[in-house]
């Protein structure tokens, strides 16, 4: 290398710097985030502008992303938890919803002075943006190929019903904490992984399921004998053991306030009719129910389940088991229209699918086209306030 080349490399021109910046992962993630959110906003705007009788209640932002369960999170953020039942919905109380999202919304609202709805939407979008960056790193760490991480982030950005990642819903925060904990675990930062996992179980119940993944991954790496010798590397087990902590603390809170540790379960049973049933019973019930919407949701969840089989390889089976556990939990619920929303937060599926798409541009194009079509349709339904995500 000549002295001039060395100097050029050390002091890149403005153009070269810009080129490098645009090609960087951060720029790609920012593009995915802005592109996907912009598309959703456009669809929402056009739906409200063009569909007869549809109209936005207030400004497009944040109102487009404040529907259905968002109101519960806003209520908790504003007033805290209450035993009071919702008018017209006996048994429905705010204890059905987990605390971390409304807690952070309130904190952001108090720090910035922004209205609560805007704080909630802002928080969800910040969480999504960071989550996409973490997913790139995690995908690269899990599969050993950075392109899989980028493809996973792209899939996540445009996945159907991905508008909930921008709404006052827990999905994006859950995604961020799951990905963060898994990445820290992969990098052997066990204390950080444990803290993030414990926080995650204050976002949603299935935050605890990551514990199963950690234990199975230890089993995969060390074998049964090695895995049983906990005292040799106790720090590896810390994330799995800490994962339920947030949930147990929430149960204590509910116990002290209501006398019912399982207040969440009680209120979803009485207020929403969510009595658990065996997964296959629910699937068959939905498929036979005759309601087209129920069939649609359960079929979309089954497609997600089928996609998780892309992880059925020797090195990925703990991730596959983690997906199965999540589906088993989701399918015990009694409401079909949440199934797709829940399914799209199961991170490893994106890694499995990206393994097949990253070297097949045609297949990737078809996949993104199909996702955009379905995602656009669902976004229009959401903008119209149709009940698709309770």
């Amino acid at each position, binding site marked *: 290398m000549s002295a001039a080349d060395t100097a050029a490399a050390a002091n890149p021109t403005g153009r070269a710097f810009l080129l490098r910046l645009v090609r960087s992962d951060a720029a790609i993630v920012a593009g995915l985030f802005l592109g996907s959110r912009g598309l959703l906003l456009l669809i929402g705007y056009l739906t409200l502008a063009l569909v007869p009788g549809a109209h936005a209640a207030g400004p497009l932002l944040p109102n487009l992303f404040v529907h259905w369960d968002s109101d519960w999170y806003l209520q908790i953020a504003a007033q805290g938890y209450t*035993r009071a*039942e919702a008018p*017209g*919905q*006996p*048994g429905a*109380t705010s*204890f059905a919803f987990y605390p971390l999202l409304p807690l952070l919304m309130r904190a952001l609202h108090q720090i910035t002075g922004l209205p609560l709805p805007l704080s909630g939407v802002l928080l969800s979008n910040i969480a999504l943006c960071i989550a996409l960056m973490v997913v790139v790193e995690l995908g690269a760490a899990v599969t050993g190929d950075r392109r899989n991480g980028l493809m996973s982030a792209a899939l996540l950005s445009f996945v159907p019903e991905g508008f909930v990642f921008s709404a006052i819903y827990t999905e994006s925060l859950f995604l961020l904490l799951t990905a963060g904990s898994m990445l820290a675990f992969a990098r052997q930062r066990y204390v950080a992984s444990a803290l993030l996992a414990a926080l995650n179980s204050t976002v949603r119940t299935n935050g605890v399921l990551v514990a199963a993944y950690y234990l199975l991954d230890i089993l995969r790496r060390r074998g049964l004998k090695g895995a049983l010798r*906990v*005292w040799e*590397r*106790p*720090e590896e*087990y*810390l994330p799995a*053991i*800490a994962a*339920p*902590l947030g949930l*147990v603390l929430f*149960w*204590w809170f509910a*116990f002290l306030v*209501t*006398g*019912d*540790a*399982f*207040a969440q379960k*009680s*209120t979803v*049973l*009485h*207020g929403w*009719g969510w*009595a658990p049933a065996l997964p296959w019973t629910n699937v068959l019930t939905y498929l036979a129910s005759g309601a087209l919407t129920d069939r649609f949701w359960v079929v979309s969840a089954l497609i997600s389940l089928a996609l998780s089989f892309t992880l059925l390889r020797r090195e990925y089976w703990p991730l596959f088991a983690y997906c199965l556990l999540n589906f088993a939990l989701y399918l015990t619920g009694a409401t079909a229209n949440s199934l797709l929303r829940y399914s799209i937060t199961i991170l490893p599926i994106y890694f499995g699918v990206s393994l097949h798409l990253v070297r097949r541009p045609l297949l990737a194009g078809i996949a993104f086209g199909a996702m955009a079509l379905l995602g656009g349709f669902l976004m229009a339904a959401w903008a119209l306030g149709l009940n698709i995500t309770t």
Partner: protein
Amino acid sequence: MKRAGVILAIEFLLLAFYAGSALAFFRYSQDFILASRSQTLPPLEMGETVALASSGPDDGMLLGGWTRETAGIRAGNARPELALRLPRDAAAITFSGEFAFSPQGGQHIDVLLDGHALATIEASGPPGTHACRWSLVLPPADRDISVLTFAIVTPARFVLETLALADQPEETTCAGGAKLSIGALS
């Protein structure tokens, strides 16, 4: 080595905390919605009868609520609830009710006692209104007041005319060619 010991101790403490919490929760936790119901709903006494009827599925919420609120009844959505003062031993509750079927025919109602599945009622027959009498056998109660919930799974007009707490179950009978089956749920 010392760090490993500290981590092991933390892990042990966390597991002990979970185990202690679980013991406390399962021993002392009570369904707070039911506890609230049993305080706010005047319970039905043995032999007492009430009348109530649904408004039908036309309002898009399966059952929009009972047309008449009666003491001991909580109405709303598709999950009307009755508070019952039950004897400590096993008892049968006899209902006399009507079902009105849609043209497709058929109705499915899950019955829950204190939030736990008790029975499922399947009714079928030609379109129209059919009067039936049927009984539910309740397991021994471990509390003075229990809450009986009717979860209407398949929408159809559902009228529960009378209710009585009796000592013995009655044979299920229906008029007008309707069939009613009551299955126990585990």
